[in-house]
């Protein structure tokens, strides 16, 4: 589609969404205690209640650029937190919010970082799929792995509700346990996940801030409430495994039947990028196709000082296969799996050291890299898939599911 035609579609469709929103009386409704202007944040005289966090996400579509330069159509979330939905005079700013969310999908989805005990209010506004005006897809947010879930806030459309275009749904969850979780849209899950509605989500433990000495060093940040420090770390990085099937994405933007049965991924990624983009610390250049909105904000570069402990919060949300991640030069101490401390019910440690972990879709692993104190500044270690054929960006060799651990 040429850019002029595409812009015409956008104008037509934007008009359609706003009109529908107004006539349905629905619109953007952000629910966040203490927040008066619907920004999901607290400004001016607004007071943030203790242990409360809010976020406002859009669900829609957009574009990203793969490591080989190919522009890929995606469905995805974008972060609207901070954008008022209500003006100073009480005016409805829904159109501004929708405009900001339209074609703004990012990959991976904005990271969600919570603390144990938080009350978390997440508003999802479905801004519609600009490039697919034939679709009326609802969206959801599924907090993958949150314990003691209730159907209404589980984001599973089959068991509860999903939100239509032009409207908002606020999810509430009292965050019970720390750990590495993940989140994704569960509406038509195979399609919406293959196309990109996935992101990092982790919860820091209540033990953070306490000091434990472990193997001669003090730590105040931990992966879990271990009580004695072995999950202490200096720096942490969420690392989400993902992969796309370019044929599926192509069929989606071309309004063709989607190849579910033949799905086979050819763009393996960490945090939404193939190597070498994984180690680019900044946002990637905005693709023109989405109106120049930056859509790849996360990277997968890991940096540390000699002697530090680095916590990798590894999750996998690809929808086609298992991947094995390996490290070269520095082993991993696996201290958590699926947002649980690896410890038996009577306190026996089940930690293990390894050079590789195999992670299926919907699994998470907490791995601590113990950087040798003798590591010379400038040292580079690699975190990469040992499924070596996935060290590629589609037809381009030497890329894919790999990143660097750089020692300062």
């Amino acid at each position, binding site marked *: 589609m040429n850019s002029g035609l595409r812009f015409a579609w956008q104008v037509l469709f934007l008009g359609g969404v706003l009109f529908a929103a107004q006539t349905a009386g629905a619109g953007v409704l952000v629910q966040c205690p203490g927040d008066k202007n619907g920004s999901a944040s607290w400004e001016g005289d607004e007071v943030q209640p203790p242990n409360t966090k809010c976020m406002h996400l859009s669900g829609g579509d957009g574009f990203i650029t793969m490591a080989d330069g190919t522009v890929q159509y995606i469905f995805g979330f974008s972060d609207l937190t901070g954008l008022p939905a209500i003006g100073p005079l009480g005016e409805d700013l829904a159109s501004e919010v929708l405009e900001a969310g339209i074609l703004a999908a990012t990959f991976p989805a904005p990271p969600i970082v919570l603390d144990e005990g938080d009350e978390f209010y997440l508003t999802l506004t479905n801004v519609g799929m600009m490039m697919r005006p034939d679709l009326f897809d609802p969206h959801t947010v599924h907090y993958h792995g949150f314990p003691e879930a209730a159907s209404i806030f589980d984001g*599973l459309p089959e*068991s509860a509700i999903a939100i239509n275009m032009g409207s908002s749904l606020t999810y509430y969850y009292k965050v019970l346990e720390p750990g590495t979780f993940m989140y994704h849209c569960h509406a038509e899950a195979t399609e919406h996940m293959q196309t990109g509605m996935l992101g990092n989500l982790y919860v820091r433990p209540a033990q953070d801030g306490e000091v434990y000495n472990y193997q001669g060093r003090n730590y105040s940040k931990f992966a879990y409430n271990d009580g004695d420090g072995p999950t202490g770390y200096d720096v942490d990085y969420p690392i989400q495994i993902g992969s796309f099937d370019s044929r599926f994405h192509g069929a989606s933007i071309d309004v063709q039947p989607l190849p579910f*049965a033949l799905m086979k991924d050819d763009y393996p990624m960490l945090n939404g990028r193939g190597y070498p983009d994984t180690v680019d610390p900044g946002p990637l250049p905005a693709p023109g196709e989405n109106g120049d909105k930056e859509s790849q904000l996360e990277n997968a570069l890991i940096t540390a000082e000699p002697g530090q402990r680095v916590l990798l919060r590894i999750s*996998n949300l690809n929808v086609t*296969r298992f991947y094995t991640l390996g490290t070269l030069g520095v082993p991993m101490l696996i201290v958590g799996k699926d947002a649980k401390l690896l410890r038996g019910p009577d306190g*026996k440690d089940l930690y293990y050291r390894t050079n590789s972990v195999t992670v299926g*879709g919907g699994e998470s692993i907490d791995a601590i890299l113990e950087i040798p104190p003798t590591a010379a500044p400038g040292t580079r270690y690699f975190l990469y898939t040992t499924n070596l054929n996935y060290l590629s960006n589609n037809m381009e060799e030497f890329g894919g599911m790999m990143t660097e651990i750089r020692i300062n």
Partner: protein
Amino acid sequence: MNKHLALTSLRLTVTAALFLLLSAAGAAAAIDGISGPTFQLSASTGYVSTPDGGSYLIWGYAAEGGLAQYPGPTLIVNQGDTVRITLTNNLSVAGGGSAPNVSMFFPGQRVVVDQADRGVAGALTSEAVPGGTVTYEFVAAHPGTYTYYSGTDTALQMEMGLFGALIVRPAAGAGYAYNHPDTAFDREYLFLLSEMDPRIHQVVETQGPGGLAATNHLADYFGVLWFINGRAAPDNMMESNHPLLPHQPYNSFPRMHPGEKLLMRVIGASRDSHPFHHHGNHARIIARDGRLLESAPGAGPDLSYEVFTIQSVPGSTHDAVFTWSGKGLNWDVYGTPDAGPQYQHDCVDNDGDDFDDTTHEYCPDHYAECEDNDLDGLADDGSGERCKNGWTKTIPVVLPNQGDLVFGAWYSGSPYLGSLEPLPPGEGGLNPNGGFSFMWHSHTEKELTNFDIFPGGMMTMLIIEPHGVDIP
């Protein structure tokens, strides 16, 4: 037919139908299967149906006098039993070729072949020739969840359907997975995971297995159908022994009450790995491959660990204990009077475990009366509790208007457990008791399809039924 007779006949039919329903439900009480210790099995051909309208030739094990099954009969024995299985080879193939030999393999068991009925020697085990038999014997020394499958041309014969589950019940008795109190459960369900590449079945159906020589299908295997207990969703949520699925007798439709322990017996029964994700809560993996995760005999599952996704790899079995209570939601799971008078209820905790003694409601999440005269949304007593329309612990957000929502078939119309609220015509309907439903599925989400059609495949729904709903 006179009117009286017609009425009587109708009444009889309804009664018979009810009886059938009840007995079908009753059959789901435990894991479906056949009890030992002596089994007369055969291997024969049949057809499985898939929800996309497909029909595929299978080779399956059959119980005595029964049809070929996908998967084979779940063999249920007791620890210490001397298990004796006689297998008759009733396979036939297309194209006039001779049927293959067939056998059974029991990973985790010390099998001996009955010297009086030893069939012929195969590469891995003794086999029954076409029309012939072979008898295997082993002592079920260890309790647990096991699998069995054909040890003959396994790449093809497992794909064709020659596999099943073996459950050894512990000496500790019913309600225990292993011989330790920490392995107790209230309900148990089997999740036997398999996939299928239809090309193989089509070649075998039309040309016999010899036709595969001209293909590379066993090597470039590409599954497009995925099953739990031999049925793809949504068929696996129909009752067991459904007449429409004569070769797929087992369903997969777990249900439980809050606070109960549900034992998941998960088996990887074909060639791909599957990340089996159970919505709702963590589950504790207490055993793998029929061995309790314990540091020493008798220690109990002290090396067990909790997961939200079970990594089911080919040939493996996992026993995991799942429980759910809604503890810590920070809103009343049974609703508050703010939502309507029908939500009024008590939380009675005489035994001091924080849970209602009958309903297993978590009492710290139970509502209380409150006053909010300054209208700041918080109780005036300084407790910091939310206060809405005179009640604490109401659901903390306003749900969108129905016109802005798409509803799931398992949605009751109410966010609260055990309640129903009106939905637009044609919405909901699969959740008559107002339960909470959670999808249990392969998180290789591509496998939630039936040969290109979403949704389906390797998924089912767990229903948390409110207290008082009878679960057989």
